[in-house]
């Protein structure tokens, strides 16, 4: 019988090996997928069991976890709506957005860089404390940007062109993340529904995402750069300058802003057209350059790509397969060109930083509970879309636009500012989208800024980029330069 017994031993071994395979599959191979299943509440319980790390600005917490005496051991607290677009929220019921989501592994102490702490925690029985995330944001500049927008809807991005570090990022209106962090599910759910229903979309970080904006005339900077970079044009190349221009293949006429003739001569230089923000010369330049050349240049600036700062930006769009009329419109930032304020800031950053874009970044440092640095991103080149000489040429045009042109409200006494306004049309009767982008000091830039204001700043089609967006940008630049 022992021969048969040996075979039974093999059967028993096969049964146990199959159990080892099944448990390994569940506990290791499929564990991540099972952990992400929305019906699995364990991951959420976990996140409330350990103290989540803080998000800090200049050493002061803007989001932190406070001991709580109910089943959830900690309550997430947010200091100010000023930062809601950056931090996002962390809610038991609604999940997480913003940095609360993007930096979750660090904040919960689950990042692989905290491996030794995790082992230590396992051995000592004490839970891992989450790491804290220190931002590149300057709280004073952030406050200035927040206050400067006032009741206007829109966004501000300010960054250091030499490092890509983001100095200020504001989206208005903000929201009170504490209302979603509450432990009561019904309250949290009602508050969330209310924020979702709000027509001003407070939950959207308008600086990097959302429904995107038509850039209007700020896009002329990119087209001018594309023209010069092509080698076929210089800043002084002359363009035809009629008072009216019939879009090819249509019966539609376009005009310059204010119905002016853009200097009043038969031709105008690219530099002057940018300074005076004329649509007709740029429309013709766009047709001459061709949509492919503009698109290639736009993509070098970052169009069509998302950027993780580590918040993920939406990719800006330069349309494809346009006819000449549409190409003409696109050259002054109309038709279906759609951008984020971050993309516009990156475009200006390339001009400011001799043709190079540094990767935009919000994270200064990630510090573990025992104060060791886990992650401190160093400046990184994102792209090199234009040559230094192109950057210099466009920079001069942008200086002219502010100092002597139509972007005059960004002037700062004693400092040379480079910039460009934009006033983008939306639908036939819809209010305009107002823009300013620029940098200062123009010869040695310390700050690049992009400002967008929705709904014509409350003035409908009477709102202008120079009247509403440029002053906001000016205040932000001044706040940086004061330092």
């Amino acid at each position: 019988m022992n021969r048969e017994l040996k075979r039974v031993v093999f059967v028993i071994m096969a049964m146990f090996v199959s159990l080892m395979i099944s448990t390994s599959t569940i506990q290791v191979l499929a564990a991540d997928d099972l952990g992400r299943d929305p019906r699995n509440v364990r991951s959420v319980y976990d996140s409330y069991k350990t103290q989540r790390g803080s998000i800090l600005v200049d050493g002061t917490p803007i989001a932190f976890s406070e001991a709580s005496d109910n089943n959830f051991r900690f309550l997430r607290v947010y200091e100010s709506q000023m930062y809601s677009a950056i931090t996002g929220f962390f809610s038991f019921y609604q999940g997480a957005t913003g940095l609360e989501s993007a930096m979750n592994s660090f904040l919960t102490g689950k990042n692989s860089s905290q491996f030794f702490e995790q082992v230590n925690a396992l051995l000592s029985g004490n839970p891992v404390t989450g790491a804290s995330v220190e931002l590149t944001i300057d709280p004073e500049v952030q406050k200035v940007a927040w206050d400067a927008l006032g009741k206007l809807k829109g966004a501000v991005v300010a960054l250091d062109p030499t490092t890509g570090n983001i100095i200020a990022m504001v989206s208005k209106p903000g929201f009170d993340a504490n209302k979603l962090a509450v432990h009561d599910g019904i309250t949290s759910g009602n508050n969330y529904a209310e924020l979702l229903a709000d027509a001003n979309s407070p939950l959207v970080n308008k600086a990097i995402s959302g429904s995107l904006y038509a850039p209007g005339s700020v896009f002329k900077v990119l087209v001018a750069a594309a023209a010069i970079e092509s080698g076929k044009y210089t800043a002084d190349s002359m363009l035809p300058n009629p008072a009216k221009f019939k879009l090819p293949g249509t019966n539609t006429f376009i005009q310059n802003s204010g119905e002016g003739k853009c200097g009043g001569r038969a031709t105008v230089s690219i530099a002057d057209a940018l300074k005076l923000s004329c649509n007709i010369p740029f429309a013709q330049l766009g047709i001459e350059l061709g949509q492919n050349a503009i698109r290639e240049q736009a993509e070098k600036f970052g169009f069509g790509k998302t950027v993780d700062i580590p918040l993920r930006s939406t990719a800006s769009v330069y349309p494809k397969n346009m006819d000449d009329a549409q190409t003409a419109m696109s050259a002054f930032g109309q038709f279906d060109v759609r951008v984020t304020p971050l993309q516009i800031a990156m475009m200006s950053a390339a001009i400011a930083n001799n043709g190079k874009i540094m990767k935009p970044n919000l994270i200064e440092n990630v510090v573990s509970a025992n104060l060791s640095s886990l992650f401190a991103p160093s400046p990184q080149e994102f792209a090199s879309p234009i040559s230094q000489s192109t950057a210099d040429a466009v920079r001069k045009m942008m200086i002219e636009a502010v100092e002597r042109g139509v972007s005059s409200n960004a002037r700062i006494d004693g400092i040379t500012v480079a910039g460009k306004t934009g006033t983008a049309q939306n639908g036939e009767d819809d209010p305009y989208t107002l823009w300013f982008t620029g940098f200062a000091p123009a010869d040695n830039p310390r700050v690049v800024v992009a400002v967008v204001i929705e709904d014509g700043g409350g003035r409908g089609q009477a709102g202008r980029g120079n009247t509403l967006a440029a002053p906001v940008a000016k205040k932000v630049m001044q706040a940086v330069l004061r330092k």
Partner: protein
Amino acid sequence: MTSTVAIDIQKIAGVVPRKRNIEIWLLFFAFGINAFELAQIQLSTIEILTFDILTYWAPLAVAATVLHFILRKKASEADALILPAVVLLNGLGIAQIYRLDLATIAAGGTELFAFRQVIWTVVAIAAASAVVLFVRSHLFLRRYVYISMVVGLVLLISPALPFIGTSINGAQLWISIAGLTFQPGELAKIALTIFFAGYLVTRRDSLAAVGPKFVGIQLPRARDLGPILAIWAVSLLVLISQRDLGTSLLYFGLFLVMIYVATGRAIYVVVGLGMFVTSALIASRVLDYVGGRFASWLNPFDPTHYDAIGGSYQLVQGLFGLAHGSVLGTGLGGGVPQLVPLAESDFIIASLGEELGLAGMFAILALYLLIVSRGLRVAFNHSDDFSKLLTLGLSFVVALQTFIVIGGVTRVLPLTGLTTPFLAAGGSSLLANWIIIGLLLRISDTADSRERNGVSGF
């Protein structure tokens, strides 16, 4: 006969048997681990050590020590590893049930299991001790083969009887007498193993006889298919009346393995498995309850099964728990195993997998393998065929039950109503499995003929 003389001289000379010394040290080790588990649970959940630990630790330790001393007196050459391994599992089960009780108390619940489990443990070890004391030799049980059959069948059928039969969670596996529920199928497996062993030993020669040849395969004689048909009918009856695939698979699988080892004829296994699979497939079509279990097994994440009453919710929650445990587990008391329905009984293995991780699961599987392999070792070495078959059957039934239960929780098989031996909350299961251990210990005392001839071993 020289060997028995040698033993007697040892006993007369008062020499302490080596195996029992190994056993007592391993027992101390197991008691230590059990105490450590309870302490860890208190520290991580209520954050203070209380004397409650003694309530859940001492009875098992004392009872196991008493059994150890009975073995010293009455079965000094019994296997030394089985008892400590079982104590480790039993203690781990008590600790985890206590841990789930603490979660229940924290949530305001009142249905507690750990203390009952402790009482049952003591009763079960007392029963195992009684087996060692009163089953005087390995041949003793051979006198009761046909009584065992009757007892086994009555126990097996009893849950389907009116008045005493009770259905819990859809499976009709319990009897309820005077307010106490009991799963008689657990005890039936012992009685039937004794019967199978006795029956097969007497009939093996005729069962092994060669019948007609069909396409190159030697078939058994038609009249020898009688017993297998009878057992098949009984397990089918169990499947239909008690609506549990696991119990039916357990008995049928046990019988097939035993008839194979007794006769050496694989054709019985082939025919038997074919019959079982066919009837299980038909049952899954015809019986809603069995069909539901199959569907939940194949597509547990499908919302229609997940949300159905008696659907895959429990299975999926168990998988979530296991996944949460990952490789090293959350630590005892660190997870949320109470989220799984019946975490203390049917899903105790998911609770342990969550808190002890894959490492703990492998350790638990290794303990079962150790117990089973020690039992099989007795079967290998025993010179008496009845004892050989009986120990094989008892060891295999533990292995198969473990496989069916853990396989059910980890989706190797459809989920069934069986319980994890030694770990799960439940008196009948503890009692039956400890009696099996008592029998294995008793028979192993007379097994090691090779060892006495100079081959060393524990």
